[in-house]
């Protein structure tokens, strides 16, 4: 039995190791970059691993631990190898420096990660000069390539990646003039607002956006204004004389290969619908990590990918025996979106809210009947939260049920 894992980030490594440990004969890990680790080698900051390894690690350390597991498990690793096509019969076409290979797998686990939304996706008007980077790209250039990408910087978007990049730029000697966030609340974790912005006196402008990029050759300035219902509030425009604009405006799952298999893409995750084992509608095809939906904590990524890796070897079931699950109201995203019925372990349900909520209660319902309920002191859009179903709750769910996840502020 061959399990092919596409992508050697934390999700791919964790899934590969779990598959091998669960008894897969052969596991092949295919990574297009020159190194394993996905985005972790560039995330040199700490904050990883508290749940998965029980200690506070940096990104490279987390990746290093996983890499050691991969190396010790007898998993075949291809680096500089990119899967360029995926076919329905589980054949992968791989381009690598020694030729084109066709891999005929029994199981495919896609752990392909996410890409960042570029400037063009949010259509910021103005000129098209050099000096505009997405935050992850900036992070790669600073931390892995070792480059100075800008001296005077403005940041759009207050997600964690942006906040961390703002601090990193400051530590490298750049002047970060400010961070604008379109929403009335920050995108990232409160601790990152504190330790990345407040620690260095970087102003955060909520309900603001960049309305224009100026500069002929290199960015010369950005215009920033307060926004209300999608419109500029007159008289609030400010000009920041910067040479660099960094965008941290969201991640989208890398779903191209998944689309090639004809799987439908859910609008709210940007990827295929999965069950609690991260199996898609195509038996034997799994999607894990950021490729399945955007997680924030790499710990959750590794945990969930391990579930898939193990199931890929052990768990095959009739796809018709399932219920569906969808997010409602202030719930933005839910994973899984399909629940396989009749397997022994009750599933864990992951979700993310649309706006910050205080004390609230999250309910899993079917036709108005509540199946499970959990209370939270607070929920934030920046964090994925979870509900683990109990066996008796799971047993109530029947094939064909349309389940809904809702949240009610208390």
């Amino acid at each position, binding site marked *: 039995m061959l399990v092919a894992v596409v992508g050697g980030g934390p999700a791919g490594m964790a899934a590969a190791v779990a598959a091998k440990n669960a008894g897969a004969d052969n596991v092949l890990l295919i990574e297009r970059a020159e190194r394993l680790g996905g985005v972790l080698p560039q995330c040199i900051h700490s904050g990883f691993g*508290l749940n998965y390894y029980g200690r506070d690690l*940096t990104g490279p350390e987390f990746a290093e631990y996983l890499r050691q597991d991969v190396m010790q498990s007898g998993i075949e690793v291809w680096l500089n190898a990119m899967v360029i096509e995926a076919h329905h019969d589980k054949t992968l076409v791989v381009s690598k420096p020694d030729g084109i290979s066709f891999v005929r797998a029994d199981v495919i686990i896609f752990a392909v990660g996410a890409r960042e939304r570029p400037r063009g996706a949010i259509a910021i008007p103005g000129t098209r000069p050099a000096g505009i980077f997405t935050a992850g790209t900036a992070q790669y250039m600073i931390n*892995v390539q070792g480059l100075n990408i800008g001296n005077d910087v403005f940041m759009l978007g207050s997600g964690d990646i942006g906040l961390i990049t703002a601090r990193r730029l400051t530590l490298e000697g750049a002047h970060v003039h400010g961070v604008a966030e379109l929403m009335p609340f920050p995108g990232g974790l409160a601790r990152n607002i504190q*330790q990345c912005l407040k620690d260095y*006196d970087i102003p955060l402008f909520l309900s603001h956006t960049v309305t224009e990029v100026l500069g002929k050759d290199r960015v010369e300035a950005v215009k920033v204004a307060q926004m209300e219902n999608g419109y500029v509030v007159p008289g609030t425009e400010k000009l920041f004389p910067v040479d660099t604009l960094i965008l941290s405006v969201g991640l989208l799952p890398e779903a191209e290969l998944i689309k090639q298999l004809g799987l439908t893409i859910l609008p709210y995750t940007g990827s295929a619908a999965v069950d609690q084992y991260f199996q898609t509608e195509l038996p034997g095809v799994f999607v894990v990590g950021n490729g399945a939906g955007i997680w924030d904590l790499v710990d959750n990524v590794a945990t969930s990918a391990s579930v898939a890796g193990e199931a890929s070897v052990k768990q095959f079931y009739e796809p018709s025996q399932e219920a569906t699950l969808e997010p409602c109201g202030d719930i933005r995203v839910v994973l899984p979106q399909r629940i396989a019925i009749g397997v022994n372990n009750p599933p864990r349900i992951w979700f993310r809210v649309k706006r910050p909520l205080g004390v609230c209660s999250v309910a899993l319902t079917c036709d108005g009947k509540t199946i499970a309920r959990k209370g939270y002191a607070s929920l934030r859009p920046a964090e994925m939260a979870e509900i683990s179903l109990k066996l008796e709750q799971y047993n109530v769910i029947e094939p064909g049920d349309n389940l809904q996840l809702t949240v009610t502020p208390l």
Partner: protein
Amino acid sequence: MKDDRLPRGKTIDLTCIICPVGCTLHVSSSPAGVSVLGNRCSKGAEYGAKEITHPERFLQSTVLLLGSATERRLPVKTDGPVPKDKLFDVLKEIKKVHVHVPVNMGDVIIKNVLGLGVNVVATRTIEN
């Protein structure tokens, strides 16, 4: 960066950065001592108290790496907290050094940096 140390007898509100929960801490100090409210665990209390007396941060950065075919930088961190007002001095030291492959995660790159009692250590293994 401004000095966060406040005169005695003041109170500050801040976000705990110890774990992702991010509790809002209300810290006040008086000649009688320091009190922390809003923390959900003892680590938070410790952090809040430190923040008002002598704030510290863990620091991560990169050093120049030589001899590798694919990598140009080695990521590093301090293995203990650094006083907040010394962060940029430590960074200056980090910018001065370079290392050769092979390097192992945990290797000490700068011992007892600036006599602060913490080491700068490698956070990645790079064999070649």
